[in-house]
């Protein structure tokens, strides 16, 4: 699933009511667990913590003035600072700080009045200085939480230990260079926040729900574009298992750099099964870093703990401790938008939507805004609007991998269609036909209704004439109906609809048929 619509309108966002959640869950777990028959294994509890890296949507890098735009030719956006040239020094980008504070406030966290940048030392060609500037002992954001909705509809609080500012590394390129390795430092120095959860998650589904929640939040806050294909939002998952009832954590494996919700779920499920099988067959989980291979659907060992780097963290002497003033925090707090949970609650009460619908419609700010724009035009029909946005519209967007903001179906245009349903110009059924034409041709509902002659027939005389013709053409069925076979009422509805190309007003038709058929 592509881009930001992935959170809400993708393949695993289900028809309302959540009845398909079960199916979706077995579908994705089926590949791994059903085949081996390990699914129902009880007696084990899974413990998961996620480290999410969200690229901050600043225009320039965290410590240099170079652009952060994606897709430039290699090294076109690497300044001397990003290249780690002799003598250069980092200067902190204030916008990155503002964005981290925004996130911290949105998760109800403590904003450190003073935080410290530290150097994480290791050698790698795409790490130009030989160290990454990060935050270690004193992060800017600590002790927050988010609430997620579980499959059974209940909610769960997931603790967020910390979120710290750091710079991204560059990229090593191994293909098309005749066996050599190329280094592209465009990404080096891109600002990130690393969001570290408590080990509060108990299943792959919970992990995905949490990750989606964070994804929704950072996009609401406009601090991250959430683009997972470009690597703007990715995560590492720490996974361990322990016997149910045990309060001691098992040995964990860290699965690195997973960049889709689907892969997170699959990777964690695979890893859980692998660890349980390993322990049950007498083995031991070793602490290590693993990589998920989406082609094979498995995780593979990358390096063991003994081979892990000693990062030799120490405070970066080129940067003073970061002091965040009280009035700065208050100014950021005042600039916060309505957050997803608040918006969903308001949608429920203001528009009378179910919690599920409100959740789906507020999963992105763009979608919520779109919905509200539609509702402004048909203020008496919030449920109709919700059904259309989540139903027909979501389906076509999904099919063509488009976002709600793509412009293919502006809110005003959809609202135009709903207006005609509301004022009974067309029936719901005809509206689907009109919608298809609108989607294909880009015209407004009224133009299509007029040009195709789809306007509903509400002229009693016209409907009566059609009824009379149908009765005349079907004397046999009429006799049977009058003899007591009332099921044939539907047959007459169908025939009249057919005769009017579906344009007869259904309520009027019903009324008139009730009067005429009995004779």
């Amino acid at each position, binding site marked *: 699933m592509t881009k930001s619509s992935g959170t809400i309108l993708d393949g695993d966002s289900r028809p309302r009511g959540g009845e398909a959640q079960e199916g979706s869950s077995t579908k994705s777990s089926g590949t791994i667990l059903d085949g081996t028959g390990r699914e129902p294994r009880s007696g084990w509890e899974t413990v998961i913590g996620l480290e999410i890296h969200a690229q901050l949507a600043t225009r320039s890098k965290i410590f240099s003035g170079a652009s952060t735009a994606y897709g430039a030719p290699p090294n076109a956006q690497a300044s001397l600072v990003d290249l780690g040239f*002799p003598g250069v020094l980092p200067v902190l980008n204030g916008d990155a700080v503002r964005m981290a504070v925004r996130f911290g406030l949105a998760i109800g966290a403590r904003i450190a009045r003073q935080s410290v940048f530290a150097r994480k030392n290791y050698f790698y060609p795409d790490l*130009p200085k030989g160290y990454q500037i990060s935050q270690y002992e004193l992060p800017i954001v600590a002790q927050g939480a988010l609430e997620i909705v579980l499959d059974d509809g209940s909610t769960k609080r997931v603790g967020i230990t910390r979120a710290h500012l750091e710079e991204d590394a560059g990229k090593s390129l191994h293909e098309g260079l005749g066996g050599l390795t190329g*280094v592209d430092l465009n990404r080096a120095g891109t600002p990130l926040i690393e969001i570290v959860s408590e080990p509060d998650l108990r299943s792959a589904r919970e992990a995905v729900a949490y990750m989606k929640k964070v994804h929704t939040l950072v996009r609401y806050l406009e601090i991250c574009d959430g683009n997972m294909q470009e690597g703007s939002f990715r995560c590492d998952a720490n996974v361990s298992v322990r016997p149910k009832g045990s309060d001691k954590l098992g040995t964990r494996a860290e699965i690195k750099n997973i960049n889709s919700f689907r892969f997170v779920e699959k990777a964690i499920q695979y890893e859980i099964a692998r660890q349980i099988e390993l322990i049950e067959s007498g083995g031991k989980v070793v602490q290590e870093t693993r990589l998920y291979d989406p082609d094979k659907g498995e995780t593979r060992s990358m390096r063991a703990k003994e081979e892990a780097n000693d990062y*030799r963290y120490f405070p970066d002497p080129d*940067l003073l401790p970061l002091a965040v003033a009280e009035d700065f925090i208050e100014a950021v707090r005042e600039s916060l938008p309505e957050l997803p949970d608040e918006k969903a609650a308001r949608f429920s009460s203001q528009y009378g939507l179910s919690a599920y619908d409100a959740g789906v419609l507020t999963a992105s700010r763009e979608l919520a805004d779109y919905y509200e724009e539609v509702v402004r035009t048909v203020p008496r029909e919030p449920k109709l609007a919700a059904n259309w946005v989540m139903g027909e519209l979501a389906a076509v967007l999904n099919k063509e991998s488009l976002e709600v903001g793509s412009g293919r179906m502006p809110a005003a245009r959809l609202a135009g269609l709903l207006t005609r349903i509301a004022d009974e110009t067309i029936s719901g059924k005809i509206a689907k036909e009109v919608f298809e034409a609108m989607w294909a041709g880009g015209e407004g509902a009224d133009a299509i209704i007029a040009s195709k002659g789809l306007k509903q027939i509400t002229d009693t005389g016209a409907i009566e004439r059609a009824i009379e013709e149908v009765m005349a053409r079907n004397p046999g069925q009429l006799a049977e109906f009058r003899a007591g076979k009332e099921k044939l009422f539907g047959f007459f509805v169908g025939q009249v609809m057919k005769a009017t190309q579906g344009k007869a007003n259904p309520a009027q038709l019903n009324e008139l048929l009730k009067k005429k058929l009995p004779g």
Partner: protein
Amino acid sequence: MIHRNTVFQLAAGLRARKFSSVELVRAYLQRIEASQPALNAFICVTAEQALAAAAAADRDLAAGRGGALAGVPIAHKDLFCTEGVRTTCGSRMLENFVSPYDATVVAKLKAAGAVTLGKLNMDEFAMGSSNETSYFGPVKNPWNTERVPGGSSGGSAAAVAARLVPAATATDTGGSIRQPAALCGITGIKPTYGRVSRYGMIAFASSLDQGGVLATSAQDAALMLREMAGFDPNDSTSVDEPVPDYVATLDAPLAGVKVGLIKEFFDKGLDAENERRVREALAVLERLGASLREVSLPSLPLSVPAYYVVAPAECSSNLARYDGVRFGHRCKDPRDLQDLYRRSRGEGFGAEVKRRIMTGTYVLSAGYYDAYYLKAQRVRQLIAADFKRAFSEVDALVGPTSPTAAFPIGAKTADPITMYLNDIYTIGANLAGLPAMSVPCGFVGGLPVGLQIVGPHFAELRILNIAHRYQLETDWHLKTPERFQ
């Protein structure tokens, strides 16, 4: 004898059109060329660019334009990045590194009209106290070419002492301006940490490195510093404080100025003859109206061990960027990545740099960090607190700059600890970030001795004032080595 002039005199002479910058530059270039075999003070001489810059300065001066240093020749320690010019840091690692940009200090001095004659020799990556660790060979002391000039700014000090340039830039991480100033008989100032931008100054130990000046007098040092100092948005550790006119109030009388003798500096390690010269200098200050008293800074003797944890820790990280990937030395035909790293760094760095990288890596390692790095940082706080307490009682602190006068080349290279102890009196000011100077105060066996003056944060004016008044009373700073008259 144009080279006997101070920066002040040269700037005035140029402005009065007594001589042209081109004449001046030619004269100094000749001296540099003639002395190079004996002193090895320069790593590269940029004669062509210098003559072009001098001609431009002459045009400016003729038009009545130009900054305070218009047309005055200077040279830079070879760790200040200079655009289009090799910047080696005294290392094979950067032997062929041509900087694509100017350090802020270089740009500021250029803007003031100074003409750069070349890049000065130094200990490799500024790690050394004798200028013997340079990949480009040791620098010799102009007073006795069998002796070291001190380090790490040995090239800068020797060049100024031999009057190859009237002033030079230098840097001081643990004494690298003051100790060579003392050993070469010239005046040097390391300002307050944050006073001079570090942008473009190749880092050794970022929390200690500070750019400064070597010159022949406090007055010249004041003038140079005024042009170099100031807040730089490219250096987050530079301080946003206005720069006073260091030159304007140099003459203020010393009457009533309270000067503290650092008790811990007059220890067993101090050569008796050196001590005599320093005490004679203190008597001069007293005669000038300063009141003297002894002040104790009990944590100061811990400065050498603390420094040799903090500085290597920072250097081990700062020097990680020299990996053979983007610039600098790369080994021939690397087999793989590890081979590239190992051989490029193994070949590119000298023994002292490697020793410090290894020490620094060790003290930052898991399990040792608390015992070494954190403890050293605590010692640093104690030392800073000692100074703070002392400065609540006195306006400036004085003592010797170095335990001995210049020692013979090779005398201490076998024993790093003995070498490190050369900096025993200078390191404290770096750990506390304080401004400090060294001024010539006499000779021992024909070799110069330095008096150190340390001030509170941003009290450059005060220590320059004391140094200048002292130099108005004495002529030690006017002595020049016979061979380089």
